């Protein structure tokens, strides 16, 4: 059950975050942090289909995570879900076409090794 929930969380989070990155890239950099400007940005984002997809995708891992918290410790549940890092770095390179240099690969690899140790 634990690993099924982790699988659902990892897959849905990875897809959701890639959608968020696509949506926010399409929106452009947020520079104005005054409440009115943030409200206008939020209104624009509600019409962004990638952002809507992100919110829908993140609802799935949220409820799966709630269930996971009833059967495991917090210090296990959160680090174990960091397996998304690996999947998302690959998706960032091949779906979002980001320039992932060797430092980012090395950093992501260290994070993944660390997360594996934390979740053992």
């Amino acid at each position, binding site marked *: 059950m634990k690993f099924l929930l982790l699988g659902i969380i990892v897959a849905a989070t990875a897809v959701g*975050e*890639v959608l*968020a*990155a696509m*949506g*926010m*890239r399409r*929106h*452009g*950099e*947020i*520079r104005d942090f005054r409440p009115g400007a943030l409200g206008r*940005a939020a209104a*624009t*984002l509600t019409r*962004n289909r990638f952002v809507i997809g*992100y*919110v829908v995708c*993140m609802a799935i891992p*949220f*409820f799966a995570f*709630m*269930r996971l*918290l*009833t059967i495991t*410790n*917090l*210090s296990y*549940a*959160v*680090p174990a879900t*960091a397996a*998304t*890092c690996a999947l*998302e*770095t690959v*998706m*960032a*390179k091949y779906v*979002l*076409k*980001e*320039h*992932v*240099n060797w*430092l*980012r690969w*090395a*950093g*992501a690899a*260290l*994070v993944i*090794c*660390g*997360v*594996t*140790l*934390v*979740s*053992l």
Partner: protein
Amino acid sequence: MSAETARLRAKTWICATVVVLSNVFGNFFLKRGMPASLPTPLAYIAALFQPWVALGVLLLITWMLSRMTLLSWADLSYVLPVTSIGYVLVALVGKLFLHEEISLKRWAGIVLIMAGVALVGAGSSVQTAPRSQEPAR
């Protein structure tokens, strides 16, 4: 480092701090208020109205919004390792406030995560290409 790069880096670190703290404490409050079991779908909904869980959800909404803001200028492959420090902080919060056991293996993992974060944070630019500043219509 140009002024634009410095501005972007400072903005990134401020936003990343909000992302990390809202995630860590959001998850902590969620765990604190979570009932021992969730037998029915209705139990999930009822749990959302527990005060600690509601506070956790509020912080996780903050996390989602701040992460989206960060992604409006920073690469996903940059944001991922930089915000991974949250995994370390969650383990510490679990130990300090929920009295969970952290083995030597977990501490070793925490050190590796911090090394990974430092490597990405110090050694690469925030974005692959400059983003537009105007919202798309």
